[in-house]
């Protein structure tokens, strides 16, 4: 039993919105994820009861309350464990995890690694706002070095980790990144995640208007984003810039930016994206590209087909009484006379 779409059920985005008004701050990037998530669900051909939205703790993790499906607001960092158990016992469900940078990368780091490596058919959306928002502004594992927060008054001394690198290193079969402001790309990425058979990981660069406002402005402002990000397209070179006049090339293992004349032949050392290559080195390299030296890639980094974990879980049933008897049971009658069962009664000779 796996997820089986039942054709077009005529469901609309509104059908997936619960009657609870979101309690996120005005202008929070979380609204964007809710908008596009509920936009994706009706396209999957599944009735509402087949969806389960599972979350941990944090602003991201309030999402289940706002989606009119089954939902579970679990404990901090551990949504992926609950989602895994649910998915393994109910492969017919579409299971989505809503998590954050603190939830998935800090307290839940272990669960994240292991869920990703097992590759169950679960979708994970990580709201990365580089801050603990619900506890009012402490540094998270993705907070930039030097950043002053309430818990780092002299600037953060911890090197941040990259969620995409973590996912790819753990063997993610689907990994993508999108900014909260890019609705079109988010719709596309969530759709691809939904269609992927296996664990799908989507990092959303998400603005916290209260405690980390503008942390991604250099990647999302219309004026600069063409120069600071590059949208990944399968089998295509990484050409970016307002005038499409720069290209990412590779020197050994080192990506670099070179000038490019639009329309000119693609240079031989150009980095050509390939989402489906089995080896994850390219996706990992892309996940390491950081501002300001390199454009930050967005879109789908990796999408490969591998054995889906829940396919291993299919109890067939059988004769339980036989299991209980085991190979060594015997029968006694009311007088205490013992006789052997089955194979044991055979003579003791080598087979």
């Amino acid at each position, binding site marked *: 039993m796996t997820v089986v779409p039942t054709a077009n059920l005529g469901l609309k985005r509104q059908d997936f919105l*619960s009657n*609870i008004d979101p309690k996120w701050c005005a202008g929070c990037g979380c609204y964007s994820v809710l908008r596009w998530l509920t936009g994706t669900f009706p396209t999957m051909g599944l*009735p*509402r*009861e*087949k969806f*389960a939205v*599972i979350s941990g703790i944090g602003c991201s993790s309030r999402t*289940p309350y706002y989606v*009119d499906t*089954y*939902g*579970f*607001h*679990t*404990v901090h960092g*551990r949504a992926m*464990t*609950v*989602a*895994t*158990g*649910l*998915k*393994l*016992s*109910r492969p*017919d*469900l579409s299971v989505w995890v809503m998590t954050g940078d603190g939830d998935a990368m800090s307290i839940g780091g*272990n*669960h994240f690694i*292991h869920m990703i490596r097992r590759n169950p058919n679960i979708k994970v959306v990580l709201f990365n706002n580089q801050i603990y928002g619900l506890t009012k502004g402490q540094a998270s594992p993705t907070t930039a070095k030097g950043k002053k927060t309430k818990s780092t008054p002299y600037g953060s001394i911890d090197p941040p980790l990259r969620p995409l690198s973590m996912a790819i290193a753990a063997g993610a079969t689907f990994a993508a990144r999108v900014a909260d402001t890019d609705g079109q790309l988010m719709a596309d990425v969530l759709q691809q995640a939904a269609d992927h058979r296996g664990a799908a990981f989507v990092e959303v660069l998400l603005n916290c208007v209260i405690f980390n406002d503008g942390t991604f402005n250099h990647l999302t402002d219309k004026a600069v984003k063409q120069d600071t990000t590059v949208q990944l397209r399968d089998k295509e070179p990484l050409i970016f810039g307002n005038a499409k006049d720069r290209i990412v090339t590779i020197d050994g293992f080192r990506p670099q930016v070179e000038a490019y004349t639009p329309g000119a032949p693609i240079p031989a050392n150009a980095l050509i994206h390939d989402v489906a290559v089995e080896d994850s080195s390219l996706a990992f390299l892309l996940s390491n590209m950081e501002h300001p030296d390199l454009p930050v890639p967005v879109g789908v980094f990796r999408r490969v087909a591998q054995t889906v974990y829940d396919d291993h*879980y299919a*109890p*067939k*049933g*059988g004769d*339980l*009484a036989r*299991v*209980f*008897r*085991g190979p*060594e*049971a*015997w*029968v*006694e*009658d*009311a*007088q*205490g006379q*013992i006789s*052997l*069962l089955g194979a*044991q009664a055979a003579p*003791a*000779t*080598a*087979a």
Partner: protein
Amino acid sequence: MTAIQTARTVEEVDTVVIRFAGDSGDGMQLVGDQFTSTSALMGDDVATLPDYPSEIRAPAGTIGGVSGFQVCFGTSDVFTPGDSLDFLVAMNPAALRANMPYLKPGATLILNEDSFISRNIEKAGYTANPLETGELVGYRVLRVPMVQATQEALGAGGLSAKQVDRCKNFFALGLSYWLFNRDIKQTQRWIIKKFGNKPDVLDANQRAFEAGLQYGKDGKLVDRTYATRAKVTPRGAGVYRQVSGNTATAYGLLAAAKRANLPLFLGSYPITPATDIMQVLQQNRDFCNVLQAEDEIAGIGSAIGAAFGGALAATSTSGPGFSLKIEFMNLAVMTELPLVIIDVQRAGPSTGLPTKTEQSDLMQAMFGRHGESPIAVIAASSPRDCFDATIEAARIALEYMTPVVLLTDGYLGNGSEVWRVPELDELPVLKTHLVTNPEGFKPYSRDSKTLARPWAAVGTPGLEHRIGGLEKEDGSGAISHSAANHQKMTDLRAAKIQRIAQDIPKTEVIGDPDANVLVLGWGSTRGVIEQAVGHLNARGVPVAAAHLRHINPLPSDLEALMRKYKRVLVPEINCGQLAYHLRAKYLINVEQFNKMQGQPFRADEIEAKIVSMPETLSKPVAAANYGALS
């Protein structure tokens, strides 16, 4: 059944306690297993106590590396693996030295004399060869050159000296079979099955086993053998097998799921001494879903997810893992999902003594969570009772929509005894609160009898709802921060657990109905308590006993029962956790009796304690020689 009848004299015995001890690589667990299953198949009652170090292969020849397997077998009802040893089979000086404290006066020692060389003697911590110092006076010492005899039996085959040496456990087994007139067929079959694909090893083990038998037949050991008396009261018609507590627990989960008509899910993580539960279920994946999770937390988290999806869900662990699961246990309390949490207790705190038994997690099971977090707690009382106790845990979880902690322990989990295998239709049908009707559905409405909420499994059309760890509004289950509602929900959660008492059977009392002293136990102490009370009653000492399966809630008749006695004695393998709870709850000053040595109580310890209590002897008692018991 053909037994070996070559010795001149066969002495009939009632019950025998024997321990096989050697290095942890000597195969003593295997020898014990074979001896036990053969004895069970011959109609004897059996109870076993494996006792092994936590290191897989501690330094050979040292006390720390001694691995033992004790079995009590015999005709009359065997409640425990035995207090002290009638026979010790010791493969080296360390095995002898480690087990000296457990020997009965006059016990028989069957010693592998080839290993009593100076190096081994020193490693065992002896300053001189105990075979020569006279310190074994008072025991019957039988010296057997096991290594040499095994070498002779195997001849100059293709096996290395090390491989030959590894066959000596089968020599010891063969010799023991001769000594106790055990039927050899079962073990012969087992050797073929086990080593059939390695012809040289098969041949070597068969020869070693035969050589052990022949050594006895040749009269080189003693001129008499032993046989257990024929049973006076048969066990009753049925199918029987030997079962360990951990296997019985795993089977209990399978049976409960079957009788509840639910899929079974276990989320678990390897931990001594609970791992076997997960492994037995992994072997039976046709009947269940098992996740070997990345950690203890994920074990219970995945189980909670499965419960949300409508499965009978469980997680199994021991002390340190139990500590890690606590946050998620509270989520199960708040979301009121059915869940069985199995804690095979071991000696703590921290890593403690991983392979040694204790009953010291009771308080943690009862109270070890933040907030007011009532949870059902039950305990199994013997290896085979683990099966029934697990089904009872599942029944409560499903009927009351609550997490249930099932406490077993290392002694139960690893110990084994004869179990009558029930037919599936003998077992109770387990009811659930699964719902499908959207009409008037409220996630936190209440069943009037049990106060359980409805179980709307994910995937049920029209029942889409959200749950989580935030406080719930009564009825709707919506998030609520209302002060009055929090009071109400706190009270409801507590009342629901208390309602479980309505299903608990009347507390059964055994022993002398007119006694002044009631021995009240819980969990794995049942066997020794009943044995001790039985012995004392037989000698005219007035004492009664009762045993608790349900710890939270306690049976509703317990307080009145306790008040009928002048004094209630509570033996526990902890520092008095149940005693503490009983005092707090009933204001009855029970008498504690505690032991913290990583070992179960011995019946004679409990007998001595009962006899020492002034209340016991305030009734006239026939004279008896208690001194001989200690």
